[in-house]
């Protein structure tokens, strides 16, 4: 009986000794997955973005309304009348964590690195059709385009445009993106232990935070981004004060967390992140418009959304969130909004798919059993619900889910009939250019939607010099893909940032799905 008492005493002693003073000044943020690397040009992971926004800066920043552009590293900017040249005036008081001063040369070098083929940079279209970036003087740069790009300033708020220290790229070689990143943000990266944690320290000289925050300097000394894959663990961690902030809280726990007086929950005002299922329209089972429409009618978005998100998300009857820039409100919502099993069955009958003895539909001896690819994790529940709905109209959906890292490779193939996906966007143009350009096949245009008219309209929108022209062009594209039923829009996801009792409530942002954005809202009570 001696042993347990000893153990308890030892534990108690350890507990007292183990409450470090440091813990008082450290903010622990928990998230679900880690990034593959910390390199703005070589990873599109949200986990990369979350830290990039905190340790780096972009020329232009985005306000909480997700529409207003505010100065960042650039104090001001002007656009030439033909929309080809953007001139940015840079702040002259900015330095990197390493102490190096930031000048126009760094901006030039950043874009040169992104453009260079050997970088193997991703999503280069986000630069527009960039000719080159020129340093006019130490604190002025010209961004010269070959074609106008109406999206440019919005794109520039995305973390891909983070200004990097190119000296570090040369110095680290293959280790760039692996060793701590040197940026100009409110925090400096101290260490990264993959799959475990990323530790950031306050950037002492930082004072150039965007005006959307009350404080333009970091208010906490140390931030630890901790990877906690288990949902339950994250929730329990927030409830028991072992974590201070998280936006990765499951829907089932939100109600309890909101009711908890110790915690505060903030919902992003304007947040654009949509879940959908896309069809590969040139696959044998998917070519018939009637089949795609029938699937849309059979899937009960409202019930699925209500159930899976516990009523926290908004069921989608359009491809994009209605509050987004250049949204077309005139599309016919009936097809996606109202569930009708009878109409779905009628369409499938008409298309020649007859019910077999097992309840599933067949045509010419072939079973209507489309294969759906997706990413494992949260999407499993959604996919299973869709699978259940389609079963009722005789469609045997085959669900195959993959781990996130493998999934992207799988989703670039032509082996599947449908795919599940969710994505962030800042404007209609952002979303449409990404998914519906014929040049973007096989990925991210996994539908194989190749339509010359769509391409023409997208060009028209992205090179438009006036907002009206742009909205009209993008509006037509929305109508077109909507009528062709190339997706099942499922729901628009909300973003909630939960803050623990040690911190003042944090206002949720949501740029690229990052609730904390620059992290300047983190502050102890």
């Amino acid at each position, binding site marked *: 009986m001696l042993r347990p008492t000893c153990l308890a005493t030892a534990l108690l002693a350890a507990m007292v000794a183990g409450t470090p003073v440091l813990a008082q000044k450290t903010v622990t943020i928990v998230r679900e997955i880690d990034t593959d690397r910390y390199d703005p040009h070589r990873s599109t992971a949200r986990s990369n973005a979350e830290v990039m926004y905190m340790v780096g800066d972009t020329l232009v920043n985005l306000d909480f309304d997700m529409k207003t552009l505010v100065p960042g590293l650039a104090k001001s900017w002007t656009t030439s009348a033909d929309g080809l040249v953007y001139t940015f005036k840079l702040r002259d008081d900015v330095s990197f964590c390493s102490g190096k001063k930031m000048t126009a040369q760094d901006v030039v070098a950043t874009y040169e690195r992104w453009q260079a083929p050997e970088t193997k940079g991703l999503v280069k279209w986000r630069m527009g059709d960039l000719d080159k970036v020129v340093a006019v003087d130490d604190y002025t740069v010209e961004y010269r385009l070959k074609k106008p790009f109406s999206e440019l300033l919005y794109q520039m708020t995305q973390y891909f445009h983070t200004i990097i220290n190119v000296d570090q790229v040369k110095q680290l070689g293959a280790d760039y993106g692996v060793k701590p990143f040197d940026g100009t943000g409110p925090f400096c990266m101290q260490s990264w232990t993959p799959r475990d944690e990323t530790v950031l320290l306050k950037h002492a000289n930082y004072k150039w935070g965007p005006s959307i925050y009350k404080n333009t300097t970091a208010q906490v000394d140390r931030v630890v981004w901790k990877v906690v894959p288990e949902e339950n663990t994250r929730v329990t961690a927030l409830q028991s004060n072992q974590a201070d902030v998280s936006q990765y809280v499951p829907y089932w726990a939100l109600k309890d967390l909101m009711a908890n007086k110790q915690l505060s929950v903030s919902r992003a005002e304007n947040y654009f992140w949509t879940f959908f299922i896309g069809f590969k329209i040139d696959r044998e089972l998917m070519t018939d418009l009637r089949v795609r429409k029938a699937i849309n009618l059979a899937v009960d978005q409202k019930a699925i959304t209500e159930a899976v998100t516990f009523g926290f998300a908004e069921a989608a009857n359009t491809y994009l969130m209605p509050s987004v820039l250049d949204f077309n409100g005139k599309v016919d919502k009936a097809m996606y909004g109202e569930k009708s099993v009878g109409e779905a069955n009628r369409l499938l009958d008409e298309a020649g798919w007859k019910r077999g003895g097992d309840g599933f539909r067949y045509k010419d001896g072939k079973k209507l059993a489309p294969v759906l690819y997706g990413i494992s994790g949260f999407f499993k529940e959604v996919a299973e619900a869709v699978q259940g709905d389609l*079963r009722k109209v005789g469609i045997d959906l085959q669900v195959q889910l993959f781990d996130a890292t493998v999934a992207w490779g799988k989703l670039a193939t032509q082996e599947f009939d449908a795919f599940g996906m969710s994505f962030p966007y800042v404007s209609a143009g952002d979303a449409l250019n990404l998914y519906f350009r014929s040049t973007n096949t096989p990925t991210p245009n996994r539908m194989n939607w190749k339509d010359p008219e769509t391409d023409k309209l997208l060009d028209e929108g992205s090179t438009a010099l006036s907002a009206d022209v742009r909205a009209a062009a993008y509006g037509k594209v929305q109508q077109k893909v909507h009528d062709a039923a190339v997706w099942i829009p499922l729901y628009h996801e909300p973003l909630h940032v939960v803050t623990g009792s040690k911190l003042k409530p944090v206002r949720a942002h949501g740029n690229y799905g990052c609730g904390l954005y620059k992290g300047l809202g983190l502050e102890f009570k």
Partner: protein
Amino acid sequence: MTDAILAEADARALEALRRKNSIIRRLLRDPPATLALAFLVLILLGALLAPWIVPYDPFANSMRLRLKAPGFVGPDGALYLLGTDAQGRDILSRILYGLRATIGIGAIAVLCGGGLGVLIGTLAAYYRRLDTPLMRFIDVLLSFPSILFGLALAAVLGPGLFSLCVALSIAAIPTIARVARGAATVVMQQDYMEAGRALGLGDGALIWRYLLLNCGSTILIYATLQLGQSILLGSVLSFLGLGAQPPFAELGSMTADGRKFLQAFPHVATIPALTIFFIVLAFNVLGDALRDALDPKLRQ
């Protein structure tokens, strides 16, 4: 003289049979073992008869009836004895179907892996020169944590019941092989093996008739214990996401799916988890009782 020794061998076999009967009798006098046996019979019956006795279609979802607590009565008066899962499916029906999958996978693993293990073990005991290479091979298998092996297999074959069966079978080989070798080595030292060889019996006949039959009971006991272990390992692999794919019902993946609701709707994960626990427990209690009954030293 050899005849006499062979007669003795047959007499031993007969005695072993009689002993088996007494083992069963002794087992029935052991209340926990009887209980375990009865429970397993019940579970097996439930699994076998599942298609005829399930109250609802285990695959039919209904999002409006999801995550209901045990004893929930639906709007149409339908009773959900164990509640519903995240897709609004009846948990009782899914448990009954899940039993088929879970026990089936375990049984396949023990049959395939155990069969291979017995083969390896007896061969190693019978042919001395095969002993070292075969046992080194077993060591290699033992050096792989079976969970990693299963994961790697899932990466190769894709997650699903097939890779699960293969992984569990391979994991079952070493234990059974070692047991079989141990038991067979003891039998090899018996006079009747020598006598049989002197009589000109072929290797096959010797292995089959004397070696295997005399090790049979020992192997059977360990196979019972291994069945429990295989089911346990299978549930762990399913929990890590490489088992049954939706909408298939399997106890391990049901637990895994339900675990995220553990705080708010604990029944979704705990019911299948407890089912696994009790099945494995029953196999272990039964296996232990059999082992004790066979080993007179530990009886009393």
